[in-house]
């Protein structure tokens, strides 16, 4: 390890977007900064690696965003997904600050592109990173290197040492060796706890052991747990996490974006007994995308099976793994490990309930079944055209909600008041604003806004 100062101005725990924004801001203000990233270099960046865009308020067209997207509409969108579970003051702060973040990001090496094929129509609300989140992370790591920030990889912080209203030092394992890190100020930006399956199982029950984790395996919530144990104020529901239905063959960890499946509206979805369990045509994908994680999680063995026929195979984005394919419904059922008779019965009763009518894959077309106890209310077309295709679905965890409560200066509080030299940014405090649901690109907004605030406040504190 290169010569470290005995004491840093700022130690940043975490190595994703929020951590990097904090480090850049503090270093530019003249602070000496250390980043402690728990992942090895190839996996640096936490869940930011898997992100793709940034939701941004703007009062007129600014590259790459079209039209305008103003504070009230943005807040309204947030209120819809969170069902009001947000701190409106912090939410408005994040939304208002997002506008000035865009040029700041560009000035620090982040490049954007117009949203192109296959994406949702987000060109008005969301700015897409050219190359995605890892390209953003690379740009920021180059920026911090140029600013003289020291980055320690494979640096797992095990304990944040609190003395009264101050943090004095961190205990960490760096590349397996115990190290004590001293600093005048600290920013915690080490993510949620979804990488700790035991913790998920305690929160969700044993079913969580069958969940797949879409993001980094390095978000194990060690620092979050440590701070909560030391009386830091918390927000968010400890028993909740955000899960979507993804390809059941995805890796246990780190599958990222490609594991998504967009086929559900054009499918019938059955459980391992071969029975349907929810209206697949309830609303447009991705509006209903998020609920399917929970729906599948409630089924036996936390697994579902989306079945489609040749009419629908080209109506959605390509999947990362090819679908299971068979010439008959029974053959498909067997290939997917299902009881062919049960699936045949389900398909027959579904097909019999389908009615002719205009089919519009991109809008709610009202093409619904008649006479089923569990209807499909849109895009209901019989499965009758071979070959037949199937995808296994499993819940994929995107993030957890439990986090540290912060104020508008990103400062962490305990029951006795603010911890004077401790700030938090990113997923570890996102529950302060995002109490439920999810809004595409908002995680990066929270990380960027609060990372910059934390870095600025920490630099001012040590100046």
């Amino acid at each position, binding site marked *: 390890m290169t010569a470290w100062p005995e004491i840093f101005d700022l130690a940043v725990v975490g190595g994703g977007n929020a951590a990097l924004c904090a480090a850049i801001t503090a270093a530019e203000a003249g602070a000496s900064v250390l980043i402690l990233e728990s992942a090895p270099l190839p996996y640096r960046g936490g869940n930011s690696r898997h992100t793709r865009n940034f939701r941004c308020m703007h009062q007129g067209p600014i590259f790459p965003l079209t039209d305008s997207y103003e504070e009230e509409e943005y807040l309204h969108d947030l209120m819809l997904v969170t069902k009001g579970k947000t701190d409106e003051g912090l939410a408005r702060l994040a939304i208002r600050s997002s506008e000035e973040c865009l040029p700041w990001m560009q000035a620090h090496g982040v490049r954007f592109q117009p949203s192109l094929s296959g994406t949702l129509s987000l060109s008005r609300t969301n700015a897409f990173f050219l190359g995605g989140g890892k390209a953003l992370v690379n740009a920021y790591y180059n920026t911090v290197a140029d600013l003289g920030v020291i980055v320690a990889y494979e640096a797992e912080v095990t304990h944040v040492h609190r003395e009264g209203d101050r943090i004095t030092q961190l205990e960490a394992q760096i590349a397996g060796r115990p190290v004590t890190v001293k600093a005048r100020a600290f920013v915690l930006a080490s993510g949620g706890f979804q990488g700790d399956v035991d913790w998920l199982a305690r929160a969700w029950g044993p079913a969580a052991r069958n969940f797949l984790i879409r993001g980094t395996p390095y978000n194990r919530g060690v620092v979050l747990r440590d701070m909560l144990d030391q009386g830091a104020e918390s927000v968010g529901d400890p028993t909740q996490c955000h899960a979507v239905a993804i390809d059941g063959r995805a890796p246990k960890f780190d599958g990222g974006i*490609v594991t998504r499946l967009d086929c559900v509206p054009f499918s019938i979805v059955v459980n391992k007994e071969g029975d349907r369990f929810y209206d697949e045509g309830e609303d447009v994908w991705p509006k209903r995308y998020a609920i399917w994680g929970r729906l599948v999680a409630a089924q036996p063995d936390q697994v579902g099976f989306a079945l489609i026929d040749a009419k629908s195979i080209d109506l959605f984005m390509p999947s990362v793994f090819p679908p299971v394919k068979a010439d008959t419904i029974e053959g498909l059922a067997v290939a997917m490990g299902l009881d062919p008779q049960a699936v045949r019965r389900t398909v027959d009763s579904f097909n019999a309930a389908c009615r002719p009518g205009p089919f519009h894959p991109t809008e709610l077309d009202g093409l619904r079944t008649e006479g089923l106890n569990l209807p499909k209310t849109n895009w209901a077309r019989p499965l009758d055209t071979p070959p037949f295709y199937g995808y296994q679905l499993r819940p994929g965890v995107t993030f957890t909600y439990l986090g540290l409560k912060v104020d508008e200066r990103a400062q962490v509080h305990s029951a006795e008041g603010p911890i004077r030299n401790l700030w938090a940014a990113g997923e570890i405090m996102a529950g302060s604003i995002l109490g439920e649901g999810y809004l595409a690109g908002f995680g990066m907004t929270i990380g960027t806004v609060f990372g910059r605030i934390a870095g600025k406040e920490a630099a001012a504190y040590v100046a």
Partner: protein
Amino acid sequence: MSLDQTPLTGTATDEARRQIEICNACRYCEGFCAVFPAMTRQKAFAAGDLTQLANLCHNCRGCYYACQYTAPHEFALNIPAALAEVRVESWERLARPQAMARMFQTHGVAMAGLLVVVLAWFFWAMSVWRPEGGSGFYAYLAHGTMVAIFTPAFLVPLALIALSLRDYWREVGGGRVRLSHLQSALHSAAKMKNLSGGHGEGCNFEEGDRFSDRRRVFHQVMMYGFLLCFASTASGTIMHYALGWEAPYPLLSPPKLLGLPGGVMMVAGTAGLVWLKLRADRNLGAARVWGGEMAFILLLGGVAVTGLALYAATGSALVGPLLAIHLATVMVLFLLMPFSKMVHGFFRLAALVAEAGMQRPSGKS
């Protein structure tokens, strides 16, 4: 794209297909270069589709450094290397005779060996066929002899490349070529648009994940230098046959005015490309042809250096040996056109033309 679904055997194509299918489900890299929008036109990739994508790829490596799925991730994506392998494999497969392609694509030593043989042959030719009269270069080798030697050495490789390109066009399912497709391709090639990184800051070739425009600059300096030298030779030919004005030409004449800066640019460009190639990560390209590619760049540089040296030595005793060396490097460059990295220019242009023809009408997704 291609209607021909016959699988081409070969692990390079299979591996590229595996990787491209993952890429196509992600699409974060859409804005980098022409490969990614081209990829989104289909879900299943015939071998010809992969050949086309591979020849569109300029090995800028932007997608590698931006990729969340590179090793150690279990998806282990390395698109620049996978496409480089398919690309080289396609040049070898479509070249004739194939054995020569296989030898020269991969072996710098074979190139050097050929150079020595041709060089020796020129020295021998000069000693045996040295003309009685003739001035300038033609005092060493008569003009008629040079033409007799170089015409087939130039035309036969071009004919072989034309046959390869015809096969390429069939394999990738290229359609009717329109003027607008050619214009689009030439525009891309002239600016090397696909090495711009999508944001104009260049590629990730030699400095890890940092962007740099050096490769684009050096490549264009080299390429335009080569074209100037080619124009110099062409102008000399016209002057010789149409105007009856024989070499050597004075400084203020088209062959020199084009050739001198062209030669200097080729030297600078090839030197820069060698330097970049030494710095870049070999595992993000077709590692097995690294030696052949390096030898090819050195050969190009050698053509320019010996040409300039020959001019500098005008009137001295060095003209004879330098002329032999220069003619030998030029000859080897021509002879190797279908079997060396030189062929990439032809295939790349073909891929750009095909791509221009395949682009979907705007507004349709």
